[in-house]
């Protein structure tokens, strides 16, 4: 509802003061620049509005915080399946999603998409050490993408940038409940033909708030008191249970 209001407002502003093409060919804003993880959090919608020069294409890329990840491959050992091989990739975005204003194979060309890290195949995955075969790295990269897709942190396919009129566009993305916390970077590209004309970068904060943030902070800063708190609850519950059952 809020985003609807925002949309209406933007349309009004646009009607009153038409954008002068050339002066500012790309403007973007997030309906909400933070995702609050509360105890009842089940995922959130991200709504991004923007104005682009008429006739241009738009791509939006969202990246989560980067961390090293390890991909492990199971193999057979004495009949049982266990992890045999492992490959660590450096600085992998823990969340990635993207939206395009036209189908991926018609959008720019593959090389330019890769240059701007638009699309999963354009993500640069750097193995920690270079002693692997190229085929092996590719296999592990594919597995990494598949694993992240399976838990909803990488997209199966691009989302659409929908134009509400010739200039105003809107992108809706969804983050799942297991979304990693941290600072997210949202890049919006204004594309003409196969060249990127303008880039706008917006930040998004994903963090626990309220009760769950308090619990998280307390458990990390005062780990021992936190443990005692858990224990006293356990002891009380055990005593209560014994009382209630009359087992004494």
């Amino acid at each position, binding site marked *: 509802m809020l985003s609807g209001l925002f949309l209406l407002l933007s349309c009004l502003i646009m009607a009153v003061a038409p954008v002068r093409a050339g002066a500012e060919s790309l403007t973007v804003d997030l309906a909400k620049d933070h995702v609050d993880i509360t105890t*009842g959090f089940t995922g959130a919608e991200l709504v991004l509005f923007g104005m682009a020069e008429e006739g241009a294409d738009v791509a939006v890329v969202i990246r989560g915080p980067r961390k090293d*990840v390890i991909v492990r491959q199971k193999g057979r050992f004495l009949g049982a399946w266990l992890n045999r091989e492992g490959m660590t990739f450096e600085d992998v975005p823990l969340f990635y999603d993207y939206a395009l204003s036209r189908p991926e194979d018609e959008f720019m060309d593959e090389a330019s998409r890769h240059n701007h890290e638009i699309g999963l195949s354009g993500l640069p995955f750097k193995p920690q050490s270079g002693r692997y075969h190229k085929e092996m790295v590719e296999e592990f990269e594919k597995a990494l993408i598949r694993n992240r897709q399976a838990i909803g942190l990488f997209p199966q396919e691009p989302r659409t940038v929908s134009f509400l009129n010739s200039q105003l566009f809107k992108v809706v993305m969804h983050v799942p409940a297991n979304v990693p916390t941290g600072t997210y970077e949202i890049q919006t590209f204004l594309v003409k033909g196969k060249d990127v004309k303008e880039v706008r970068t917006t930040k998004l904060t994903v963090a626990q708030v309220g009760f769950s943030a308090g619990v998280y902070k307390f*458990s990390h800063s005062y780990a021992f008191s936190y443990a005692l708190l858990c*224990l006293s609850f*356990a002891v009380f519950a055990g005593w209560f249970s014994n009382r209630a059952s009359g*087992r004494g």
Partner: protein
Amino acid sequence: MQIYLPIAEMAVSAETIFLLSAFVGFLSGVFGVGGGFLTTPFLIFTGIPPAVAVGSQASQLVASGVSGVLGHLRRGNVDIKIGTVMLAGGMIGSFFGIMIFKLLQYLGQIDFALSFLYVVLLGSVGSLMIVESLGTLFKRRKKNVRSEFNVQRVSPWMARLPYKMRFPRSKLYMSALIPGGIGFVGGLLTAIMGIGGGFLLVPAMIYILGMPILLVAGTSLYQIIFVTALATIMHAVFNNTVDIMLASILICGSVIGTQIGVSFARFIKPLHARIILAILIMVVCIQLGSQLFIRPAELFSTAVL
């Protein structure tokens, strides 16, 4: 209802976890077992990281241990001295267990190691129970009274161990290393597998220590409480893997389930209860075991470092 676990940093279905722990609590009420061997694998199966599952489950074990031991204490069925010696071993064991857990995580073998340990433990305990219960079922009432005084002889190499101690309550004289060693193994299992280890401690106390049956249940619970409490503290302090939300749901579920189980236990014969429990243990064992040997659909897994 989805609920966000602040430490696991993921949302889980609160009803599922609650029903599971209530069911396990029900089993505890009926059979008098802790039930960690069912809860921990299930939590891991729902996608909760093994470290958080084991750490949070440890605090649930404290609750069920306290609930069980109070009755035994009131009746005086706890040998505090031998329990304390076991406890000393258990504390050292759980310290090593946490280290081994961290090492296995580092090596990427924690899931395999957990499944493997569960299969071995559940398989051996389950099949022993089935054999024993069926034996009793077929020659019932031949000897249903067991002598309270255990005439079990300690094996010669055990008799030679140093640090001999007298345990008057159990009428035993033996090296402190024996109960200490049993406690050590129990502590290891608590820290690595998130189980109290009662199903291993109880037979060990009967057959290796030769303790009077009457004292075994209470004494094992006494030591389990402190070892699981220590494991909770260490998991919380060294690994930050105790999720109080998850632990609360587990504890509430098990408290309620236990009440129902205890009242239900009156309608079921102990022998039948043992057979059902043995079958249940074997089902979990076969389920976990088959996962180890069947080729998984996805050979690759990803972990954030």
